[in-house]
Each structure stands twice: as C-alpha cells, then as structure tokens.
C-alpha cells in the first residue's frame, strides 16, 4: 500500500512536469494500473464520531393523509393553509414525520409567523436535528414546551433566561409576552432586571407587552417610567396607567376632568378644556402641542377624557359641579350619560375620549352604548367615528359577531373589513349569512370582485365549512369573474375542511 502510494505520487509528478521534461515510459498505462489498484483496494475509513440519536418520540404519528398533506403544503410553501395546519396538528398532539423535519425547519426559518407552532410540532426530534445544522439554530431558542407545567423545570428556566439575555429582539418580545401571560409578576421582574440597559425603541415595545396581564402591581414601575428619557416610553406608560382605574394617574386625570367638565342644572355637560398644558399634565403623558390635526385644547381634552376612569361619569357623588337641586339618586348608565347635551364645540372630542377610555379600560357597558350610537349613524359619522372595531374588541365574542352581522346587513361590506377581523372564527351563522348575502348583492350589482379582495381573504379563513354549498349556489348564479372567485372560495373552505378532518 505504501509502495503504491509512493509510485502514484511519482506518476502524478511526472504527469505534471510533462514527458518533454522528464521521460516516463508507459506513464498512462502505469497510471491506469495504479488507479485500478487504488479503487479496487478501497476500504471504509475509520468511522467518525456519531452524534447521539434523537430522543424517542412519544406522540402518535400523523395519519397518512395528513402526512401527505403536510408534505404538499411544505413543498408549495402554502402561506394560506400551513399556519392553520401547524396550529391544529400541534394542538392535537401529533408527532411530525421525521423525514419532513428539514422542510419544516426551512419553512419556519423563512417565516417567523410559523416558528412557535413549527418548532413545537417538530418536538424533541426537531430540536435534536436543529442542533446539528447552524441554519436551524433559531429553533433552539424557541422553547420546546410552552403551555404545559413542565416549562417550570430548572432547565426550561435556564433556556428562557438565555433567550432573554442573548436572543434576537423579536424572540425576546415573544418570550416576555408569553411569560407575562403565564405569570405577570415574573414578566415584570424580568423586564425590570434589564430595563436600565435597553435601548429606547426596545423599551417602548417591551413596555407594550405589559398590556398582557396589566394590574395594580405594575403601577409603581409604570409611574417610574413616566420619568423615562424617551417621550414615546413616557406616553405609553401613561396610557397603561390610565387603563388602571385605581391608579394615581387615573385619579389625577379625573381631577383634570372635573375642572374641564361641569354638569349643568338641566343635566347637560358644559365643557371648557384647559387653556394650557402644564408640567404635571406633560409628565402624565399629554403632549404640549397637538400631534394631530385638531387644535391643542381639543387634543388635551381628548387625552384627559380617555385617561379618566369611566366610573367618574356615572358616579353622582363625584359628578362635577352638581348642585343640591340636581341631586341624582340613581347612578346614571353610560346610555344616560351619552344622552346628555354636550357643549356642541367639544361634543366629538368627548365621544372620542369616552370611546378610547372604553377600549383602554375594557368597559363593555360603555363600548356597547357607544357602538349602539355608532350603528345608527354609521354613514354620517364614519369618518370621525373613531374605532368601532376597537370598541368591538371589548365585547364578548358572540356579541361582536352579531353586532358586525347587523352592521354588514345595514351597510354592506365596504367598511366592514376591520370589524370582521375582530370576530370569532368560524363565523357564527348570523354573521356568515350576512356576509354571503352582501357578497351575493355585490355580485348581482356587477361590482368588481377585486374591490372585495380584503373581505374575501378574511372570509376564506373565517367562514364555516358548511357555507360551501351556499357559495356554490351563488357561484352558479354569478357572472364569470364572480363565479371564479366564489368557486375558489368554496374550494378553499372544502380544502380546509378536508385538511382538518385528516388531523382528527
């Protein structure tokens, strides 16, 4: 073997030099012989160290049709269906087919929206595989177990700590939100531990995550953040504090509201917004100059009303400027407050402020009352109407859907997109019925399907599968462009139904 190797080196040297420089009789014949000797004599090399095998999978394997579906969805990188497929498969506790793990990890590497579900579904075997390929490192930073109590083990805590200390910004935000959902105090403690060293724009987004599980315990931290170096951080802290009706900030705001709004003898509201924005107001997050198109005084008024606890308007004892003669014995409902006459110049600001307060303070009674008004005057006040979709988000799911169903029935789909996305899925019968009626109307009126593409996209995700036959019927009656759009919609619903049935 050694002799052959030497001979071979000599042959290569001769060949490189060229036979003009060094005679080498029969060089190619000898090289062919040596080549064949080498090839015929090949033996396996010493084995390299083999990585430890993957942990055993305890979850049941996917049913075969579901595995085929997953392979197809991954191959076409389906942005519509893959997220729902992964969420469902993960929730139902199936194991990922091992041979699809590389495609799964590749897909989630490109699309961070898939990561949490993809990595959880990939499971311990996915973790094992990701540790061997630098391109899949991201998967190691997503905790394997999320919801189950196992996450509290020391090892998981170490992992979590590593994410917070070394993770990418988005991963840190995700981690903090999750922790906050599970254990608000622990989330606050984690954020405090590094707060002083975070960059201003990061502080802002981290602070935002405190909306999850916000409570009185957060007040001292938020109160301190009112003195933050960054203006946006200060404003966000103030907004969060105003969502805590018992906070000192809320009380200060109520006091400002008392000075700005007087209850008149005839039950009206006499509004006189502040003339200036003093240092204390600014410390509580109110900008000195209106950042919007509205005048400064209107803006200050809006900020004060939005941050004042809504109970303030309903408590007769604290109602501002109440005279003995106008003593109210029954606490006024939001409806009765809204029914009062308001100084016309400031009426819009008051309503806008109440609406923002209802959203911030998650006050369903106020949201319901404001929405009732909005619905009646949807057309005339659509522009200044603030955010009915945000008001809706305060209501229970079924109520959101039925309110939206009535809205769609009255006003069609043109303004409905934002409302529809707040509704629970699959849409209840009243809502899906109203949407389909409206689509039928639009198709019949000869409007362009693509002007409804936003609503159609939501409908694809949210209509119940049982709507497919009705959509088929609509398609059969429609002109060609609508027929195509509607059949595709029905097809997508059926594909979704089949896909979820496979995962049963």
């Amino acid at each position, binding site marked *: 073997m050694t002799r052959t190797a030497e001979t071979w080196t000599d*042959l290569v040297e001769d*060949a490189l030099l060229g036979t003009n420089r060094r005679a080498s009789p029969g060089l*190619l014949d000898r090289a062919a012989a040596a080549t064949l000797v080498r090839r015929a004599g090949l033996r396996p090399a010493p084995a*390299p160290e083999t990585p430890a095998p993957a942990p055993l999978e305890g979850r049941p394997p996917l049913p075969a049709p579901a595995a085929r579906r997953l392979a197809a969805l991954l191959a076409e990188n389906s942005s519509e269906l893959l997220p729902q497929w992964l969420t469902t498969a993960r929730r139902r506790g199936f194991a990922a087919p091992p041979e699809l793990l590389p495609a799964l990890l590749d897909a989630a590497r490109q699309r961070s929206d898939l990561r949490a579900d993809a990595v959880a579904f990939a499971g311990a075997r996915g973790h094992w595989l990701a540790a061997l390929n630098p391109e899949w490192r991201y998967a190691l930073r997503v905790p394997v177990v999320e919801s189950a109590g196992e996450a509290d083990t020391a090892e998981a805590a170490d992992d979590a700590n590593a994410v917070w200390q070394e993770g990418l910004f988005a991963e840190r935000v995700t981690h903090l939100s999750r922790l906050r959902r599970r254990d608000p105090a622990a989330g606050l403690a984690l954020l405090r531990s590094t707060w002083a060293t975070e960059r201003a724009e990061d502080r802002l987004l981290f602070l935002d995550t405190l909306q999850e599980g916000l409570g009185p315990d957060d007040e001292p931290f938020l109160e301190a953040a009112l003195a933050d170096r960054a203006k946006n951080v200060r404003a966000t802290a103030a907004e969060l504090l105003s969502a805590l009706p018992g906070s000192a900030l809320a009380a200060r705001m109520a006091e400002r509201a008392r000075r700005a709004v007087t209850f008149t003898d005839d039950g009206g509201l006499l509004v006189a917004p502040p003339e200036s924005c003093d240092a204390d107001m600014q410390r509580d997050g109110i900008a000195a100059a209106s950042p919007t198109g509205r005048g400064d005084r209107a803006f200050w008024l809006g900020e004060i009303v939005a941050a004042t606890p809504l109970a303030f308007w309903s408590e007769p004892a604290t109602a501002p400027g109440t005279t003995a003669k106008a003593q109210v014995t029954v606490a006024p409902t939001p409806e009765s407050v809204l029914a009062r006459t308001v100084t016309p110049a400031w009426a819009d600001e008051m309503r806008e402020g109440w609406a923002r307060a209802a959203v911030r303070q998650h006050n369903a009674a106020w949201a319901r009352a404001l929405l009732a008004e909005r619905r009646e005057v949807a057309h005339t006040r659509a522009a200044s109407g603030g955010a009915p979709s945000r008001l809706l988000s305060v209501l229970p799911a079924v109520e959101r859907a039925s309110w939206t169903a009535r809205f769609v029935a009255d006003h069609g789909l043109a303004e409905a997109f934002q409302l529809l996305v707040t509704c629970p899925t699959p849409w209840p019968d009243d809502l899906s019925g109203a949407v389909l009626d409206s689509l039928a109307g639009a198709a019949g009126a000869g409007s362009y399907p693509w002007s409804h593409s936003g609503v159609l996209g939501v409908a694809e995700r949210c209509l119940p599968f049982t709507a497919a036959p009705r959509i088929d019927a609509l398609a059969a009656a429609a002109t060609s462009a609508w027929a195509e759009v509607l059949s595709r919609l029905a097809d997508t619903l059926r594909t979704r139904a089949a896909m979820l049935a496979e995962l049963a």
Partner: protein
Amino acid sequence: MNDRWSTDHVLSLAPDAPSQKAGSKLAKPEPWSGTGASQEAVWGACKGSGSRPYQTVVALDGPAYRCSCPSRKFPCKHALGLLLLWSADTLTGADVPEWAESWLAGRRRRAERADLAAAPAAGGSGATGDGSGRGEGASPAAAAPRDEAAAAARRRRREARVAAGADELLARLADQLRDGLAEAPSRGYAFWDGVAARMVDAQAPGFASRARDLGALPASGPQWPARLLEEYSLLHLLAIGYQRHDALPEPLAATVRSRVGFTVDNADVLRAGPLIRDHWLVLGSRDSSDDRLTTRRLWLRGTRSGRDALLLSFGRPGTAPELSLPTGLVLDAELAFHPAAPALRAALGARHAAPSAPATPRPQGTSIEAALGSYATALGDDPWLDAWPAVIAEATPVPTDHGWQLVDATGAVPLFTPSPWRLLAASTGRPVTVFGECGHRGFHAVTCWTENGPLIL
C-alpha cells in the same frame, strides 16, 4: 397489503413541475365523479371548464394513460390528479364505466397480439413498456425486416470512424502529457470541448463525454492533478482497448464497445435473451439531465435470483422519461441483460402483473466494507466502472467537518445525496437500510427504508 403508489411516485410521472402542481390541484374529490379503481386500472370523470367532463383512465401496468382532454402534456393533469387520489386511497368505486372498459379491452387485445408476435423470437413483448400512450398500438416487436447487408456496411463505416477517433484521442492525450498536466488549468474547457466535438463526429459518444469531463477536472478542487491523471489514464485505456477490441475476450469486448458508445437496442437484447423472470424489487430511481437529454436510472433486484439490474429510460429535456416504476414495490416481469460485463444494464420485457407490495418490508443489505468489495469485484470486469449498486443494512448518516459520511460497523465512506438532511432526519440518528451506488468516490444514496417504509431521497 398496500399496492398503491406513493405520492412521490405519482408526481415523478409528471412531465414537468407545472404539471405536478396542476395535478395536485385536481387531487381532491370535488371535480371528480364516477371514479374507481381495480387491480388493472383507475378511472374517473373530471369536471373541466367545458360542459362535458373529461374522461380519464390510467392502466396501472404501464402506466398508460388516456384522457379526453385536449392537453398536450403527457400524462395530463387529470391523469395525475386521479392517480394522486388513488394513492390517497380515496377511489372507492369498482364498476368500470363502458368508455374506460373499451379502451382497456383494446389494450389487452393488443398486448395479446404483441405476445403472439414476439413468441417465436423469445417470448417477450414490447421493449420498455407502452408508456408512449396515445401513440401506442404500433407493435414494437414487429419491426420491418431489415436489410442485413446495408446494416453491416453501416456498422463497418462507423467502426472505421470510431477507430480513427481513438487514434486522434490517443494523440491528443500524448500531446497534453508531453507539455505536462500543470498546463491544464490554463487551457480551460475549450481544448477538451473541441476534442469532444470531434469524438461526436467520430460517432463515439463515450469518448466524447469522457473528453468533455477532462476539461472540468482542473477546476475540481484540491488533489485535481491526481484525479486528472486517473481519468487521463482510464480514457487512454479505453482508446487502446477499442483499438484492440477484436482481440479481447467477448464480455470485455462488449464492455469496451458499450463504454465507447455502441448501444444495443433493448428490443434486440430481449430478442437475444435469455429472459429472466423474477419478482423484481424496485430499489430506487434517479433522474439526471443535461441540455440534450434526461436520463432515468432505475435499479431493480430480483427477489428470487438476488441479481441487480439497471434500466435506463430517456426523455427530451422537460419531459419525463417514459419508464417509471414505483420504488419499494415488486414487479413480476421478465428482464434480459445487455451483453457487457459485469451484467447490470437490462431491458424490461413482459410484465406479468401490476407492481405489488414486497413480502419483506425492506431489502436485505450488507456492510459498507462488503459493498466496496462488490465494487472491486465488478471493477475486475469493467475498469471504467465508477460505482456499483449496494444496499447497506445498517447505515447511519453523519455530518462532519469534511462533508457527510455514511457509517456502519465496518467504517465510513463519503456520502452524497441531494438531501442528506432528509436522510439524517428520517434515520433519527439510528441505523437505517440505505440503497445507493458505492464506488471510488463514496456512496451515492438513492432510497432508504425506515420503519415507515421506503423513502425516496
């Protein structure tokens, strides 16, 4: 027993990627009506944009396709969609509609006629199945009687041209060697591409492709001089071998002729026999393409004889080669081996049944060391052989700093496969049965078997 084809296999029948996609879109129940499947065929009617649904039927032994749609793709998306539905076990009907039965009956009659026609010769039927579909009906075995004398004259003319080509090739190799291989990188591709073109003119495609490959080797990374000298010496050996092929013993002379590029028609191979009937396990298949041709290599192993066989099928660029066999299933069929040694390349003769599930879940394998030994033995018959088929019983893929390795108890060889991560993931880091080609460059994996059955890599 599950004889249905895998999704991967069905998709491999598609002529191109858009067809795969279009076929997948039709792989759902809604557009279909009157679907069904038997041992022989699958059928169904698919609603298209027109008023009349398209009638689609696929005979599984070919497969051969027939569809009333006007598509020029072959097989069309309807046939693919139907097969995908079948592969997902969603075709439940059993009554063959009249339109499908009449076509199937016609096929059966033609097959019988072809058998009869071929019987006096060797008892085989057509060459590589009748996947040509719409063009079928022409009996492949019943070739026109040829003019023996003219054919012999053509052969002599070609042999003279190839011999002149071999002379020129030897002269070029000697030229290059006189100046030294150190000059090779500065010559680039052009020199050997020119030689390759002259070898094409000399009707010696085997010389041409080897000459073309020489041009790329100086850019192939460290150790290129050694690789270049190896290939120089083997091409030199082949040219010398051709000059003297009249004096070589017959199996070796046939090997030299085949390496130079003289082909023998599958039909002639089948006619010459002997025909070997066996239950052939489809070990795997792999397509490769250059700008002129897509080549499909299909490896079979006789479950009774233990013999390995290689079928080749060709297609124009962008079209799938005609022959397609489902990996992991067993084919009751007759094969005849081409004359070269060692016997590997074969022609597919009569098939006696549609592919079915094998008796054992995975093929029997050997060690990496034994696979290299088989390669060495085969090299004794064909010095130009790069690799030899092998099933490794318990192999683990391992990523290392110097690329992938396939490892078993006897050691390691470099591993090549289009998606080694897929192989590693499927193995979960534990030994799996792997089929591939084992040779002097390492192991090129094609198929692996896990507890869930065969997986195309």
